[in-house]
């Protein structure tokens, strides 16, 4: 039996930091206000059921893929369509004008087997922001494509790398498989649920980045300018698998 004990939080909150006390008080006040505010409405929690899915449906896979290409190109991004096995050549071609590239650790090795001579290839070994800023381009895979909006979604898995990789370099070469392209936004959202709410076995949630064309601004007289802080060039390689 021991005679010493760690301080414990008593019923009056002693032992909590002033910030914890403040936070708990603020939380309680807000909760009580928002409850009191809606006493005129009575609907049991959960009565709503599942959220509706309002979406366009596709006539065919071919239509979906065509629409995806059309909409990505509409953002002034480049789309190159290749057959399986031709990715390496297409990636090498996309990197023709740059001197350095960073690749995520889990990228398919064959994709970077044919890079032009003289290009500096950095693998992401905890590169600092400043080092990354000196790299001209990045090659990543993708998690999904959305045809109706021309959107590519990254879930930053091993073949896409952490978020900074596809952000700081000025050229983003993104390889998307046609089989990853869904027709409309709600279908993409449903597919991506496992990234934000993984099974116990699948580990931690992953961040998502939705990319629709290169970075852009319309802040000056509503005149659209492509290329601000994110990659100024988005080069999409679509594998028609």
């Amino acid at each position, binding site marked *: 039996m021991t005679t010493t004990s760690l301080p414990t939080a008593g019923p009056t909150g002693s032992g909590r930091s002033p*910030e914890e006390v*403040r*936070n708990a008080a*603020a939380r309680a*006040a*807000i*909760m009580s*206000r*928002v409850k*009191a*505010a*809606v006493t005129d409405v009575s*609907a049991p929690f959960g009565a709503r059921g*599942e*959220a*509706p*899915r*309002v*979406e*366009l449906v596709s006539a065919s896979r071919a239509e979906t893929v065509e629409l995806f290409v059309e*909409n990505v190109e*509409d953002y002034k991004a480049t789309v190159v369509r290749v057959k399986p096995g031709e990715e390496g050549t297409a990636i090498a071609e996309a990197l023709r004008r740059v001197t350095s590239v960073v690749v995520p650790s889990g990228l398919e090795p064959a994709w970077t087997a044919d890079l032009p001579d003289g290009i500096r290839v950095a693998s992401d070994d905890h590169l600092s*922001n400043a080092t990354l*800023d000196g790299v001209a381009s990045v090659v990543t895979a993708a998690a999904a494509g959305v045809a*109706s*909006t*021309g959107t590519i979604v990254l879930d*930053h898995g091993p073949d896409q790398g952490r*978020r*900074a990789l596809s952000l*700081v370099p000025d050229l983003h070469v993104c390889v998307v498989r046609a089989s990853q392209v869904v027709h409309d*936004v*709600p279908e*993409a*959202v449903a597919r991506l*649920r496992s990234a*934000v*709410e993984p099974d116990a076995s699948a580990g*931690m*949630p*992953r*961040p*998502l*980045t*939705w990319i*629709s*064309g290169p*970075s*852009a*601004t*319309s*802040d*000056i*007289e*509503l*005149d659209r300018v492509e*290329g*601000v*802080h*994110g990659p100024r060039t988005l080069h999409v390689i679509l594998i028609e698998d």
Partner: protein
Amino acid sequence: MTTTVPAPRPARPTPGPLQETTPTFVGMPKFPKAAKEALANTQQRRNLAHATGVIRAKRARVVGELPHWEDLRLAGSQAKDEMMTHLAAYLEQLETNLVRNGAQVHWARDAAEACQIVVDIAKTKGTDEVVKVKSMATQEIELNEALEAAGIRAWETDLAELIVQLGHDRPSHILVPAIHRNRSEIREIFRREMHLVGRPAPDDLTDEPRRLAEAARLHLREKFLRAKVAVSGANFAIADTGTLVVVESEGNGRMCLTLPETLISVVGIEKVLPTWQDLGTFMQLLPRSSTGERMNPYTSMWTGVHPGDGPQEVHVVLIDNGRSHVLADPLGRQALRCIRCSACLNVCPVYERAGGHAYGSVYPGPIGAVLNPQLRGTASAVDKSLPYASSLCGACFEACPMRIDIPSLLVHLRARVVDESGRKSAEAKAMKGMAWMFGDYRRLEKAQKAAKLGGRLLGGRTIHTMPGPFGPWTSARDVPDLPTHSFRDWWDARGGSGGAGTAGSPPSTTQEQR
């Protein structure tokens, strides 16, 4: 949740204190005076007319692409109503999921408390600067001012916010805060100010938007790369997963949300979405309504801390700041559905001419006219005048992706202003007198005879104010020559209550002017 219309103001308890008109906007003149000054600024009027015209056309085109747009509006508004009905439960869910994934959750009852939380975190990190993603919530609580007072510089990184900040100016639009500035003004601001706070503007800077954007890229990049702390808002906070969402275009958001070690997100409690699946609706509604694009260039989503990727210390500050008060009004609460898309601003003929500053708040335009008097109360001159800053033309309701019936809310808030005034003004007396006159047709007929007499005395000349009951609606206009007969006179002259009577010879009524 009811979406119905003007009714006498319901008497409900006020569960939370009202936000006060914040220091920046104290002393703002009431809307008509500020608008009059803005109308005289011809440069701003041209900029606004051009910019809102462009964005209206873009929005119409991409909204027109979706045959199910009305279904999306319904789904979106119902998701927000669900959030409001069970806000406490969804906030708890959100908190649980955030904490489980490594985020720290802070609660703030008002602006001062929220600012203190952010200042304290930044101080703990030992930094004297933060980079900021464009965020309406942080503008609402005047976080930059609070950070500056604590010796911490807050760098706005959205291009338009940068223009506003470097210009020592105020935002005038939710989405395009520098909408009131044209390219040559922006070039001057960059040349004059950039070198004072970092990398100077290039010597050969022109007023081409591409060159100006490039100057901003270079100026801000060093700040992104070195910043230790970032501050953001969130467009959505998803309860059932704990995911926060930031929708943007330039990549400044991604920079702030990814590169610094610590991220603090200030999120209004009404930003909660019940479920992940709801995001499918909102990601269709928001970009098309806001920038008029099928999708905005970048959307970032994070769920707490992601080991090895991005900020390893993630804070979420949930703020009330008057929202629970708005929630307590069964009609007024629909304003909390707002997703800050600014479609209502872009279609509003009043906003297009008066500009954003006249509204005296970070929330301008039609949504500001219904949100500010609810968040802040109607004590100040500007908040009293905002519900009247609309012709009730209804273009805002039509454009709103959340189906917020802004015209009905304006009318509802007008009733609140009148009720709170105690009905002692000259206007109130006139309105009471008119109501009494209309309360019985015989009184109306007497008034018509008096007006007709007035018309005869004036000999049919155009006058500038209508005598009698119609004064309030005609005092700012030339009114027609008064007719020599009312309709009733004509009806009596042809005899009877109707049926097969011939139309007789009506008095001449066509006038060039009405």
